[in-house]
C-alpha cells in the first residue's frame, strides 16, 4: 500500500500533473462560484480538449473540476445566499445566517477545513477499499455485471430525481441513443435511419455538451436564469480561521460526516448532494439545541461541507474498481479514460497502477491546493459573479463549438451538439433530468454486452440471473427501487379516490 501511494505521489507531483491539477481545481472553484454552469457541463466542455493529453493528466484535471466545484459552491452559499452548486444548497441555511452575523470568515474557514478533512479521509477510504473491492469484482461474471448495472440505474433514478417515471424514461432514452450506430458484437447497423452521420453512433462529447452546456446557455438566453442582485451585495470577510469554540462545535459533525458522506458517495445516485442533506438532517436530529439550526450555527456548515466532499471521493470507488459510473460526472470521467484506451475496473490496479494511484494521490494534492486557494482568494472568486451572463454565455458557446468540433475535426458534431442543446433545453422545460440519460448512454452498451453474454452462456435462460446469489440480490434491489414509487403512487391515487 505504502509503495503504491509513493508511486502515486511520484506521478501526481510531476510538474505537468501538478499544473493540470491546479488548472482543474481552479476551474472547479470558478464553476462552483457561478450559479448555472455546473461540473457536468464544464467536464463535458473540456473532455474533447483532453484528447491530446496524457490519460493521467486528463483525468487529474477533470477530477479536479469535480471536487473543486464543492469548494466553490460554498463561497456563494455563505456570502450571497446563492448556492453555486446543488451540493452547497444546504450550506445556505446556516452559512448565510453566520455571514449576516458578521461570521462569514468562520463559516468559510470551517467549510474549507471540513472539506479538506472530508476529502482527505475519503481518499484514504479509496486507498483502503479499492484494492479489496477490485479483487471482489474479479469474481463477477456477465450476469453479476448486468444485474449491477440494472440495480445501479434504477437506484439512480429512484434517489436522484423528483419523478422516478421521468428519470426512468430518460434512462431508457439514453440507452436507445447508446444503441445508435453499429452493433458491438455483430457490427449490424441499428437506429441509423439509413444516414451515414449516425453510422458511428453519437459521440459522448457533443451529446454531453449539448445537454448541459448549450441547454444552459439557451436557458440563460431566454432569461430563465437571472443574475440580478448578485453583484450588488457587499461582502465582508474577516477572521477566516475558526476559533477554539468553533472547532469544539465542529469536530463532532466533521467526524460523523466523513463516513456518512463517503458511504453515501459509493451508492448509485448518492454522491455529494445527498450526503450534504443527510448530514444536516443528522446533526439537527442529534443536536441538544436543534432550534439553533437555521439561525447561523457552525454545525450546520461543518457537517454538510465535510459530507459533500467525502461523498465526492466515495463516488470514485465504483468507477475505479468496477469500471461503472453511478453519476453523470463519473460517467464523463469514464469517457475520458476510454478515449485514451484505458478501461477502469478491477484490472486497472494490475494493468495501470500508475494511472490509478496517480489519480488517487492527485486528489489529495488537489484538496491541499484548494485549501490554499480558497482562503486567500475568496475575494477574487466572488468577483467572478460580476461577469455578466450576456458575455459569459457566448464564451461558453464558443468553448462548446470548439470542443464538439475537435472530437473528429468535423462540423457535423457541432450541429449534433446544438440539436442536443435544444433537446436539453426542452427537457428542462418539461422537467426531465438529463443526468440519467447521459449515465444510461454510457452504461447502456456495457449492459447490453453483459446481458447478451449472460444469455448466451445460459442458453437463453433468464433463471440464470436469479440462480447466482449476488446477481439475484442486485435484481431484488432493482425491483424494490422500482416497486416502491409505484406502490406509493397507487396508494396516493387510492387515498385521493
Amino acid at each position, binding site marked *: 500500500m505504502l509503495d503504491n501511494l509513493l508511486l502515486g505521489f511520484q506521478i501526481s507531483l510531476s510538474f505537468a500533473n501538478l499544473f493540470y491539477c491546479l488548472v482543474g481545481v481552479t476551474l472547479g472553484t470558478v464553476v462552483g462560484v457561478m450559479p448555472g454552469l455546473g461540473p457536468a457541463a464544464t467536464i463535458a466542455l473540456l473532455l474533447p*480538449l483532453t484528447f*491530446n493529453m496524457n490519460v493521467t493528466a486528463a483525468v487529474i484535471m477533470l477530477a479536479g473540476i469535480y471536487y473543486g466545484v464543492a469548494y466553490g459552491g460554498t463561497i456563494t452559499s455563505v456570502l450571497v445566499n446563492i448556492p453555486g452548486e446543488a451540493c452547497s444548497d444546504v450550506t445556505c441555511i446556516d452559512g448565510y445566517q453566520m455571514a449576516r452575523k458578521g461570521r462569514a470568515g468562520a463559516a468559510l474557514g470551517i467549510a474549507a477545513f471540513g472539506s479538506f478533512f472530508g476529502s482527505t479521509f475519503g481518499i484514504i477510504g479509496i486507498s483502503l477499499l479499492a484494492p479489496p473491492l477490485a479483487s471482489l469484482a474479479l469474481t463477477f461474471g456477465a450476469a453479476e455485471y448486468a444485474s449491477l448495472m440494472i440495480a445501479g440505474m434504477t437506484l439512480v433514478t429512484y434517489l436522484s430525481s423528483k419523478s422516478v*417515471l*421521468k428519470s*426512468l*424514461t430518460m434512462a*431508457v*432514452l439514453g*440507452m*436507445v441513443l447508446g*444503441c445508435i450506430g453499429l*452493433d458491438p*458484437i*455483430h457490427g*449490424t447497423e*441499428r*437506429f441509423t*435511419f439509413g444516414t451515414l452521420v449516425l453510422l458511428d453512433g453519437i459521440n459522448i462529447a457533443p451529446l454531453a455538451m449539448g445537454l448541459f452546456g*448549450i441547454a444552459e*446557455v*439557451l436557458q440563460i*438566453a*431566454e*432569461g*430563465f436564469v437571472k443574475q440580478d442582485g448578485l453583484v450588488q451585495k457587499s461582502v465582508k470577510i474577516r477572521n477566516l480561521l475558526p476559533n477554539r469554540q468553533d472547532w469544539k462545535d465542529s469536530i463532532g459533525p466533521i467526524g460523523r460526516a466523513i463516513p456518512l458522506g463517503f458511504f453515501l458517495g459509493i451508492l448509485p445516485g448518492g454522491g455529494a448532494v445527498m450526503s450534504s442533506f443527510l448530514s444536516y438532517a443528522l446533526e439537527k436530529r442529534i443536536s441538544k439545541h436543534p432550534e439553533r439550526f437555521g439561525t447561523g450555527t457552525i454545525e450546520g456548515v461543518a457537517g454538510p461541507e465535510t459530507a459533500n466532499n467525502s461523498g465526492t471521493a466515495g463516488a470514485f470507488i465504483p468507477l475505479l474498481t468496477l469500471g461503472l459510473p453511478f453519476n453523470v460526472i463519473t460517467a464523463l470521467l469514464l469517457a475520458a479514460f476510454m478515449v485514451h484506451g484505458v478501461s477502469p475496473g478491477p484490472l486497472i490496479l494490475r494493468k495501470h497502477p500508475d494511472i490509478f494511484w496517480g489519480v488517487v494521490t492527485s486528489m489529495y494534492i488537489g484538496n491541499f491546493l484548494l485549501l490554499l486557494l480558497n482562503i486567500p482568494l475568496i475575494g477574487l472568486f466572488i468577483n467572478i459573479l460580476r461577469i455578466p451572463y*450576456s*458575455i459569459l*454565455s*457566448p*464564451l461558453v*458557446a*464558443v468553448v462548446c*463549438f*470548439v470542443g464538439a*468540433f*475537435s472530437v473528429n*475535426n468535423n*462540423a*457535423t458534431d*457541432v*450541429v449534433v*451538439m*446544438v440539436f442536443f*442543446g*435544444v433537446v436539453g433545453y*426542452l427537457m428542462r*422545460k*418539461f*422537467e*426531465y433530468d438529463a443526468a440519467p440519460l447521459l449515465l444510461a448512454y454510457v452504461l447502456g452498451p456495457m449492459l*447490453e454486452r453483459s*446481458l*447478451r453474454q449472460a*444469455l*448466451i452462456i445460459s*442458453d*437463453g435462460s433468464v433463471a440464470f440471473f436469479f440462480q447466482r446469489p449476488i446477481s439475484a440480490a442486485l435484481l431484488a434491489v432493482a425491483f424494490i427501487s422500482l416497486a416502491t414509487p409505484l406502490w406509493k*403512487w397507487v396508494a396516493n*391515487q387510492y387515498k385521493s379516490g
Partner: protein
Amino acid sequence: MRRRDLISGSAFLVLAILLFFQAKKLTLWGELGPAEGFFPMGLSLVFAGLSVLILIQALLKPVEAGERVGIIDLNRKKFFAYVGLFFGFGILFPIVGYTLILAAFLVIILRWVEKQSWKITILVTILLIGGSNLLFVGILKISMPEGLLSSAFSLWP
C-alpha cells in the same frame, strides 16, 4: 405540468413506435442467443410502456389553473436568435473558417442580441478570438478550418 406531460408522453410514444419498427427489422434471436435486435426491441417496448405511464399519470392529474401553455415563456426572440446563430455557426463553420465565423457570431450576439455597446463588443470579440486561437490552435493544437480567410491569403501575391 399536466399539459407538458401530455405533450412529452405523446412525443415519446411516437418515438417508441418508430423505434419498435426499426428494431423489428433486426434479428432478435440467433443461433447462439440474443442477436443485434434483442436489446433495441426490449428498449423500444419499455420506452413505449413508460410513455403510456406518463400519459396516464398526466391524464389523472387535476387541471391546474393558470398553467402555462407555451414552452418558451420569457424572451422568445432572444432564444430563437441564439438557436439560429448556433445552427448557423455549425453549418457555416467549415466554409467560412473559424476566425471569421467567430468574429461574426460574437458581433451579432453581443451587439444586436445582447445589446452591448460597440466598445464592449469589439473588446470581447478581439480578446476571445485572440485567446481562443492561442489556447485551442496554439497550445492544444486543434486544427481549425481556415475557410475563406485561407482562400483570401492564397490569392495574396
